């Protein structure tokens, strides 16, 4: 699979570090499963770190938004951290940046959950 994930925790926030490509296929499903799994285990604060995401397409954007909606519908929050240029550009074209809370600094992102 072209996407790797590593999950860690800081101050009650589950941080999922994503590395590789989020495109049509297995990668998107893997994010969906991981977020659902974390939310199912009671995690209501999830931060997706996209610093090493080299490629994303519209299916990948759909996966991010579906994950956001899934967590939100359970009363939780999902935020994005460290958008690469490609992700940022696609977010701007589609205006999805208006949906997500996006951060460039992990410490500040974690603090944003508390507020």
């Amino acid at each position, binding site marked *: 699979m072209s996407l790797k994930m590593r999950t860690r925790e800081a101050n009650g926030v589950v941080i999922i570090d994503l590395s590789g*490509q989020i495109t*049509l296929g297995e990668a998107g499903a893997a994010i969906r499963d991981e977020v659902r799994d974390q939310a199912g285990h009671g995690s209501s604060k999830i931060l997706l770190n996209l610093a090493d995401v080299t*490629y994303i397409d519209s*299916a990948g954007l759909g996966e991010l*938004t579906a994950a956001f909606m899934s967590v939100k519908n359970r009363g939780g929050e999902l935020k994005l951290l460290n958008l690469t*240029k490609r992700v940022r*550009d696609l977010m701007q074209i589609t205006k999805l940046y208006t*949906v997500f809370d996006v951060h460039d600094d992990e410490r500040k992102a974690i603090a944003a959950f508390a507020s």
Partner: protein
Amino acid sequence: MELSEKPEPRQSQDRPSACRVLIIGYERHSEDSLEQHLTSLQCSFTHAVGSADALRQLRDTPFAVVITDPETSIHEDLALVTEIRRVRPGVRVIVLAPGGTPEELIAALRQRVFLCQVAPLNTREIARYAASALEANTSHSGIEVLSADRDWISIRMNSDLLNADRLTAFFKQFRLTLPDRPPEEMMIAFEEILHNAIEHGAQNDPSKLLEVAAVRTKRAFVFYISDPGKGFRPDAIPHAATPDDLTRHIEIRNKSGMRPGGYGILLASGIVDELIYSEIGNEVLLIKHMDDSERRQSTFEETWIPSSGNEPLKC
């Protein structure tokens, strides 16, 4: 990139030879070498020191994929492809070359090579394509050139995502050979709409055919895509995002058992200047106007190409 001093043919892991990749040229040892990326993808490979050695090995062994020497020209490689096909008609060939003209790239497409890439090469991406070539279904012919010159290319293709990936890779390379190249993001719009044609128009059925054309005029760059589906009304698809509501369709897709998505048309229409569907909706034109400023500079940088994340391989 370092070259081995003794270019002895070497075999990687034990695997049936039919699953192997034959790499022509010297073995590379750097971390970003093709060999390293193939190994990480668990693809086994063997080296041939040149064309003659490659043909000799192919006579003895049914390799599935051949990757040509990045130091030989497309012209030389295509002559070799003809020889290779005499020995092993079904082998998939990835052509690597130090450079290429639009006509050479078209010739490679006509000759149905699996992929043609010119320097600077992205070894990670080439390894990914080689892995795809190993797994590719050979029952469909893939991509057929109906008519092509540098201003008008017409293609017929079996409708699957690998062909879409290969055709997009071709147009990305072709674009780079043009003096007044369309912006890179046009390729993103093309790929998104092509994926829609495959998924929704052809129902992911690789036996169904799509027709694609790319036309370059003095003032615009145009893609045309036709699928065999029943069509749709672009203003009445509840499973796609609209500028007014970016998330409502996610619930609709979820309830209908569709995968998350629905941003393809929104994304494409945000990139091109005109996105025009036919009355039925199974044909679409993507038009990007090419004024002088757009010809000089794309909105986005070349880093948009997924293959650009690595150090280029200088040939």
